[in-house]
């Protein structure tokens, strides 16, 4: 057992650090530091830079354009990316539909879709949940009826994150209603958002932002060649996708970065004339958070190490989802508490670039603290709620 990085790993870290210093655009960094939501062009521009340097598909196999990095290299990359406060890669193409396509898709479907996913030429969104199918995803009702060379889709998908930007959507839909188990008869379809019959309605979330949408399908005709893998096997493919999603959800490096900044904030914000970090009850929460964060980091590393020795991540990744989201929420909660009264102003535009410093109301260094806290209550709900994760661990790890 050994904690230290090898000489090669240290050299790799220096390369990555240099990459972020030289190529991460200053205007995007400024927005990230001020907590301003990035627009579509920001994401695409940054992802194209990552792609040019071969860093866009960290977890993909080399043959499909992935990095082939070791777990330690991935850990280093994630850490440096968080330290630079660079935005995460938008997951729907690169972390979700991409792996499903290269794992289960035909050669022609791989050729059609993977290059544009890698190059961020196409913005993907997710058609999973429905108004009546959340945690119980297998109860989904969206129908895809075969008519000649097309499937005709009818139904409603919801919680479609950033669907307002999307060019394509991947959809779980029923192609067969006459099945013994509800998990059967579901297919995984790819659908152009410009197809007639698709409409997108915004859902405004708790903090006032437009992040998620409801997507309606009315007689939407999808060519049969847009079916991934076999008809009726969509549930199996969808589960693989969710496992990819879950490990990314842990966001350990991001939480470490945010926690380090929180400690700085607690040193500068005053409480009773002394730094907040010296208030015993707040300090106690900071320590508890640091302990939990360290435990999560090492659980994540142990999982990575297990994967590198050939063991599948499997249901244990559910631990990372549960603890990772608890961690993010705990840190957001402490930011909120650290802000004191300045958690209250509701001025979402307050941090836009073009507002002069003297016109800003809020003096705290972490902008829109309360909005983040409220928004991130979503973390323990999405990607399979944390209660569903516990069901998964109970069944597949504990054998209950």
């Amino acid at each position, binding site marked *: *057992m*050994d*904690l*230290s*990085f090898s000489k090669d*790993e240290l050299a790799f870290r220096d390369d990555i650090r240099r990459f972020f210093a030289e190529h991460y655009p200053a205007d995007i960094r400024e927005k990230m530091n001020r907590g301003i939501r990035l627009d579509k062009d920001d994401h695409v521009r940054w992802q194209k830079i990552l792609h040019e340097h071969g860093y866009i598909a960290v977890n993909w196999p080399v043959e499909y354009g992935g990095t082939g990095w070791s777990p*330690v290299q991935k*850990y280093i990359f994630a850490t440096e990316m968080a330290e630079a406060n660079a935005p995460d890669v938008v997951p729907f193409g690169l972390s979700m539909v991409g792996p499903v396509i290269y794992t289960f898709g035909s050669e022609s479907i791989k050729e059609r879709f993977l290059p544009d996913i890698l190059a961020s030429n196409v913005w993907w969104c997710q058609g999973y949940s429905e108004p009546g199918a959340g945690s119980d995803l297998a109860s989904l009702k969206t129908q895809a009826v075969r008519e000649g060379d097309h499937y005709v889709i009818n139904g409603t998908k919801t919680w479609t994150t950033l669907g307002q930007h999307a060019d394509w959507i991947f959809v779980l839909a029923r192609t067969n209603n006459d099945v013994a188990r509800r998990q059967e008869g579901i297919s995984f379809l790819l659908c152009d958002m410009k197809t007639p019959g698709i409409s997108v309605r915004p859902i405004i979330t708790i903090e006032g932002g437009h992040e998620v949408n409801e997507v309606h399908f009315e007689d939407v005709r999808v060519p049969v060649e847009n079916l991934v893998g076999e008809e009726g096997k969509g549930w199996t493919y969808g589960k693989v996708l969710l496992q990819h999603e879950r490990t990314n959800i842990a966001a350990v490096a991001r939480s470490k970065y945010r926690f380090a900044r929180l*400690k700085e904030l607690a040193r500068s914000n005053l409480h009773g004339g002394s730094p907040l*970090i010296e208030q*015993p009850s707040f*300090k*106690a929460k*900071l*320590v*508890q958070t*640091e*302990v*939990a964060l*360290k*435990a*999560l*980091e*090492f*659980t994540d*590393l*142990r999982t990575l*190490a297990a994967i590198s*020795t050939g063991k599948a991540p499997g249901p*244990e990744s559910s*631990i990372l989802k*549960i*603890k990772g989201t608890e961690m993010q929420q705990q840190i957001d909660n402490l930011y909120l508490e650290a802000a004191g009264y300045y958690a209250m102003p509701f001025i979402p535009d307050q941090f836009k670039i073009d507002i002069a410093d003297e016109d800003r109301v809020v003096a705290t260094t972490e902008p829109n603290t309360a909005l983040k806290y409220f928004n991130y209550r979503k973390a323990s709900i999405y990607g399979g709620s944390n*209660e569903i994760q*516990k*069901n998964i*661990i*109970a069944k597949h*790890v*504990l*054998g*209950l």
Partner: protein
Amino acid sequence: MDFSITEDQTMLQDSVAKFIANDYDFDSRQEHAATELGFSRERWTEFAELGWTAVPFSEEDGGLDGGAVELMLLMEQFGKGLVIEPYLPCVVLAGGVLKKAGTDAQKATWLAPLIEGSALGALAFVEPQSRFDLNNVATTATKDGDAYVLNGRKAVVLNGGAADTLVIAARTSGEQSDTDGISLFVVDATADGITRNAYPTVDARQAAEIELNDVRISAEQLLGDENAGFATLQAVIAEATIAICAEAVGIMQTLNYKTLEYTKSRVQFGAPIASFQALQHRMVDMFVIYEQSRSLLLHAVMKYDDGDMDEALAAISALKIQIGTEGRKLGEEAVQLHGGMGVTWELDVAHYFKRLTMIDTLFGNADYHLDNYPLD
């Protein structure tokens, strides 16, 4: 970065695990715990023959050159077996001070018998008023010509009753809570002026209150430099904290296993109680606590072996906080899920729970480590 263990380490782990599984049954453990000695001397001899008492010592000292990793592997298995033999006080604590501060001559006289298993040791570092502060030492060692004279009272000295050799922290200068001015001495437990009042502890170990009344010892019994004992004491307690936390992780794994097995077999309302979601989620929480604790244990072990003492102490405090809060919660849940059986003397679960709870108290509880945690 590497989480794997070597072939030798795997062999050590396997040999202890095999012994615990085949030769360390709960019923004879209970019988031995109920004797006046409180453990089995025969088994202790066996531990020595198997080389386990030699693990954390260098080859020059007659040991096996084990580090924190070996100690962790061994203690984890001792946790699973709920081992009551005095490995912690004898090998890790008394042996730890001797290996770090002793001269070759002192090691030959005092340490070798501990490694061979022919003598037992204890470390007297707690006092009635000190609570968890290692620097709070009121016991005095006054120089008198070539000799030192010890006076004071040592509290809850683990294995203090059966020990042949006592290592004692005493003040040679400074105020009661100064870190400077503490010295360490090795003393024959039967020396004149020593009164021992031995008793069992709630977790089936043994301890003693020890009165030191004009105990005269020679200058050759001073371990390390005069007044400079604190750093040694701190380093030994750090290693011992890793040891008990590894023991705790072994206990937690066992409690989880036993709880799963029990809830799968216990039928109420016409179904195994393991089929109830209210209980399933609690067992998942216990599983997650165990995995998170193991992660912090590996972190602390690797930091300790890295050699930066400040970083190691922070990592050990983080581990101790986890064991003392989440670990104790796991113990309480294990008892709760066993229902009435969980609070009987007959069931081993109750005894695992008691040991896990007392581990929080040893070497500073969770609150103590939380208050003293260095937030960088």
